[in-house]
């Protein structure tokens, strides 16, 4: 577990460098990515599905990123982008492609749906954190209640 966390820290920092994030902010991104990976890998032990774990981890990562961005006065993407990279369903996407290449369409569809669900879960986590931080300044919809 510790080894995984250290590897995740290194991976997130490396991705920060790939996305050209300033060196003084890369370390925070690494910590956020590590937290996200810890949540994502430990929640399934308590019987949560991996999709739900991905959503919870993405929510935590985005929440921490927004807090840090307020605190350091930088665009929030500098923290969110490396923070959610460890959650990207790379392995499942690869297995999907492998199944389709092997003409095993049934398994391919199943794995593809799992991949899409996990990507959607990450998006949902991002959206929840963003909604919390944009209470009171979002865009209006459907009914004009303020006049």
């Amino acid at each position, binding site marked *: 577990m510790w080894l995984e966390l250290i590897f*995740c820290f290194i991976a997130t920092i490396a991705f920060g460098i790939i*996305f*050209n994030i300033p060196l003084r*902010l890369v370390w925070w991104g690494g910590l956020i990515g590590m937290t996200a990976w810890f949540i994502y890998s430990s929640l399934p032990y308590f019987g949560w599905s991996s999709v739900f774990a991905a959503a919870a981890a993405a929510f935590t990562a985005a929440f921490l990123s927004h807090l840090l961005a307020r605190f350091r006065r930088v*665009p929030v*993407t500098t923290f969110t982008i490396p923070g959610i990279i460890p959650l*990207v369903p790379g392995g499942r996407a690869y297995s*999907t492609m492998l199944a389709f290449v092997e003409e095993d369409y049934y398994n391919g569809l199943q794995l593809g749906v799992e991949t899409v669900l996990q990507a959607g879960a990450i998006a949902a986590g991002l959206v929840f954190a963003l909604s919390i931080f944009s209470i009171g300044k979002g*865009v209006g919809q459907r009914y004009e209640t303020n006049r």
Partner: protein
Amino acid sequence: MEKAEQIMEGCLLGGKLMLRYGAETYRVEDTMTRMSRSAGMQEVSSFVTTTGIFLAFRTKEGQELMQMIRVRERFQDLSKVTSVNQVSREFTHGELTIEETIQRLKDIEHAPMNYPLWLIYLASGIGGAAFSYLMGGSAFDVLPAFIGGLITTVSLVLYQAYLKVKFFSEFLAAFTGSIAAVLMVYSGFGINVDQVIIGALIPLVPGIPLTNSVRDLMSGDLVAGVARGAEAGVSSLSIAAGVAVSLSILYIT
């Protein structure tokens, strides 16, 4: 009158830099609106899509100005977004004049990348290696994944420099990376082909379009959000096609 045109130039330059180096649409619109409001302009409206910027305002004397620029190239360089953000913040607080702002923005535009290219190659190797360990858990495949990630990013940069075709070079880079991974595993250098291929391809993940698409859709910029989502989708599809082609070659022979 000179001043209004200078402010227009400064705002558009800031917005162009932000959009080009991977900021969200919402942030570009917000930055330009704040900058022109703080310079005393009225009825400011800005409209930004993924590939173009419109900005219109009215000066105190009642002169209307409106300009649009097209952003053709988009790179991933978040440090430039951070510095433009800092400059616009200082301008909005009145710490910089418009001439200084334009000068600093031009400096940012002409500055080289934050990190040298070799460090980015090295980082994508390390990122691939660490990610392949997270996915598979076998320590023997960390070194081939490192080499695979390195090969993928080097070939991506080379293809983009010589071919200048975005999605096709991503396809070719994914193809090169996965062929290299497969060859390494078959020559007895790695054990799990899955883990090495995932590690080699993970630096290609379109992280900025994916995150920005969610952000744009949420803040009501539907055109830009859908466009970014389509960009991320086509990128992912071309990477997947690269892997699929190399795996099919592998399974035929």
